[in-house]
């Protein structure tokens, strides 16, 4: 691969390349849409590195952050990568690092999800950084995100501070032609100098460290390289300017071009929304009466500007919810500049809703849980299996690992009323279990919560594209490592009832669930754990050993629709005209789990030769 070759790369790949080309040697991440492919691309490109790298999928974001942080203490360049809600998990070390600082350059990449397309919140990491007092960079394209990384490390090392790079979904998942650069050989032997006053800082040291942070932030806000960039207008709209950052800036550039307004109005791009340049703030106050501030998702720039003529999210001129799509930007700009209103479009139809894959073992597990405990309470969690909602087998989804504690909370509340309690069946994926499920399980056992926890073990992090999980015994690079089995962890947490079952065998799973229910209701009952184990249908190894089969609907079918409404396999649909179910042979994998769903046994599985 020549150094100057132009490649079509995804924003996340561009960021991965940027980290390598900046000499980053230690990268720790937890997968989460839209950030996942950053780590994936570094794993793929690791041969490009001039020296050894340590790459890891950590079990959660707090750990990823702490691993990268310690590497920075030794002088190496490091990165922690996560999505916006992952930063909540890493909040504890993240906030303290702002005070204590770093040594080797450290960049934390936090991918935000305005919209949100695939997240529990559309929170704004820039606001988190304002609260945490951490400088944050807001790129407007994949190429710019990449270009920011080298200078970000320089900034980090100049001030010995963690710097956040904050791409958003539309940057992470865009592709653009970007040039590959050279990867430097860093030759930075690790060397850690103990400095307890800093690295163990007790409260006595913190006011001093906080003061130093404030001083640095002031200096960083005046760094010439990170000042907002002006594209001047032609003077036809005096006293008026547009201010934007992130991808919204890019939407605005295209929009002005399409409307024939490019170069007619002063346009500022903010590269570093926090700490915002004080000279920029003064200049806007002095030179402009009217400003339109466009940023996703919270008014971070607007708050710091505190400009009396600013139009933005605070006054409601810019939508406060959802992504600022080009259409949304168009509507806001038309209002601000008194242009013709954009064409109103009727509400678009809703498309196909997402659904668990044909043959997904989670669907089989959910169906059996629901059949066994029709009046149960079903707390669940973050992952593909959130889609169990469609089957009515998921009642709550909160944040990583919350399902077990919520399940325990439900039980404790019902227990207070005395008498009988509903069966609480918690579902949690294997990756989520390792991420934040273990402490919650320990707590549930400690508090003798009578709940059933079903660990949906499909041996991968399926939602984000199949990253390895701790019980597989492989690292981020595919190297073998110690496999951390789930069963001994569950037992060590004090769980007395533990059974493993293949959810494709619905009779066996029903039996196990009933035993679990008997256990939690027994005199000294406590948490019962059932591991529902079947590989993800997307797992290439599992695909290979599958014998080719497909399901068919026989003439017995009475067109009751039970299979479609209760089971919702995407391969199944109801042909209303003919009054019978049909199976899409292109999509059916012949798993046979729908056979028992039909009340008149009209579904059969046949082997394909």
């Amino acid at each position, binding site marked *: 691969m020549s150094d100057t070759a*132009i490649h079509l790369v995804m924003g996340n790949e561009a960021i991965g390349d940027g980290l390598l080309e900046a000499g980053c040697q230690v990268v720790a991440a937890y997968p989460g*849409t839209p950030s996942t492919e950053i780590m994936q691309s570094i794993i793929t490109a690791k041969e490009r590195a001039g020296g050894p790298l340590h790459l890891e999928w950590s079990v959660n974001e707090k750990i990823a952050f702490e691993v990268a942080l310690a590497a920075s203490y030794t002088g190496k360049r490091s990165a922690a990568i996560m999505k916006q809600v992952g930063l909540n998990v890493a909040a504890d070390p993240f906030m303290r690092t702002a005070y204590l600082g770093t040594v080797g350059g450290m960049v934390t990449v936090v991918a935000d999800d305005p919209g949100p397309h695939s997240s529990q919140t559309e929170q704004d990491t820039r606001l988190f950084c304002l609260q945490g007092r951490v400088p944050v960079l807001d790129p407007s394209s994949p190429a710019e995100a990449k270009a920011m990384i080298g200078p970000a490390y320089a900034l980090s090392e100049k001030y010995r501070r963690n710097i956040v790079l904050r791409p958003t979904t539309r940057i992470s998942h865009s592709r653009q032609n970007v040039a590959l650069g050279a990867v430097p050989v860093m030759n930075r032997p690790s060397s850690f100098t103990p400095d307890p006053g800093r690295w163990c800082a007790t409260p006595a040291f913190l006011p001093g460290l906080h003061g130093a942070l404030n001083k640095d932030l002031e200096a960083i806000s005046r760094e010439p390289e990170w000042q907002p960039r002006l594209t001047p207008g032609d003077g036809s709209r005096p006293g008026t300017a547009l201010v934007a950052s992130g991808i919204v800036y890019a939407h605005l550039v295209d929009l002005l071009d399409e409307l024939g307004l490019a170069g007619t109005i002063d346009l500022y791009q903010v590269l570093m929304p926090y700490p915002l340049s004080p000279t920029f703030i003064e200049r806007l106050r002095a030179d402009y009466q009217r400003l339109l501030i466009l940023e996703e998702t919270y008014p971070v720039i607007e708050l710091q500007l505190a400009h009396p003529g600013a139009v933005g999210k605070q006054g409601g001129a810019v939508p406060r919810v959802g992504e600022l799509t080009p259409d949304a930007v168009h509507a806001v700009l038309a209002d601000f500049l008194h242009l013709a209103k954009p064409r109103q479009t009727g509400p678009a139809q809703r498309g196909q809703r997402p659904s668990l894959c044909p043959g997904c073992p989670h669907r089989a597990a959910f169906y059996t849980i629901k059949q066994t405990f029709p009046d149960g309470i079903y707390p669940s969690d973050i992952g593909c299996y959130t889609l169990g909602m469609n089957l009515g087998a998921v009642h709550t989804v909160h944040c990583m690992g919350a399902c077990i504690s919520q399940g325990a909370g439900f039980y404790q509340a019902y227990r207070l009323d005395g008498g009988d309690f509903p069966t609480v069946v918690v579902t949690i994926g294997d990756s989520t279990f390792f991420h934040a499920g273990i402490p919650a399980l320990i707590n549930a056992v400690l508090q003798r919560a009578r709940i059933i926890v079903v660990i949906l073990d499909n041996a991968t992090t399926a939602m984000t594209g199949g990253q390895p999980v701790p019980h597989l015994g492989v690292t981020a690079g595919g190297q073998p490592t110690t496999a951390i089995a789930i069963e001994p962890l569950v037992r060590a947490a004090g769980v007395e009832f533990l059974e493993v079952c293949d959810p494709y065998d619905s009779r066996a799973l029903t039996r196990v669930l009933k035993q679990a229910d008997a256990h939690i209701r027994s005199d000294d009952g406590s948490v019962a754990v059932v591991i529902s184990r079947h590989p993800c249908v997307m797992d290439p190894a599992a695909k290979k050993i599958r014998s080719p089969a497909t399901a068919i609907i026989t003439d017995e079918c009475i067109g009751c629709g039970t299979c479609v409404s209760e089971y919702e396999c995407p391969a199944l649909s109801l042909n209303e005209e003919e009054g019978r179910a049909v199976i899409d042979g292109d*999509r059916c994998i012949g798993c046979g789990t729908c056979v028992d769903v039909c009340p008149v046994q009209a579904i059969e599985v046949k082997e394909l030769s």
Partner: protein
Amino acid sequence: MKQQIIVSGIGGQGALFLTRVIAQAAVDLDIPVMTSETHGMAQRGGTVISTIKVGPFASPLIRTGQADVALLLWEDNLGVHRPLVKDDGTLVINAEGAGPGLRIDASGIARKLGNAVLSNLVLLGCAVRHQALFCDQQACAAAIRKLAPARFVEQNLQAFYEGLNG
């Protein structure tokens, strides 16, 4: 040269691969290009859309009524994504029966080739045949060779040519 294209489908139909092939054709022709893609939960069989902007653009997203061409792998998405397309924009649709736009039973053809997912490249071939796209047959074929896994290149090209020759 400026063209705005949408690729619409449902998760698992190969919309992303089709998007990458078209974008790669632009890269090979030395034209700047940006795409946006759907990932995550929506990919699980739900409605997905990707956008391709060919030429000097800054943003990968497409505004209502601005797309020149729409490639629809799933006919039912027409109601969802039609508003993005210009009134006189070109619709290329994977569909069996009669209706609006340029239509081809791409899934049927792909199934005969042994893999329903190949409908994405059959549809691409159809679009190129009608000169709906900025790129020609050679550019697309070269992009497919570059992006398809080695052992599927021939099958992928075959799907493309099936669409190309109607």
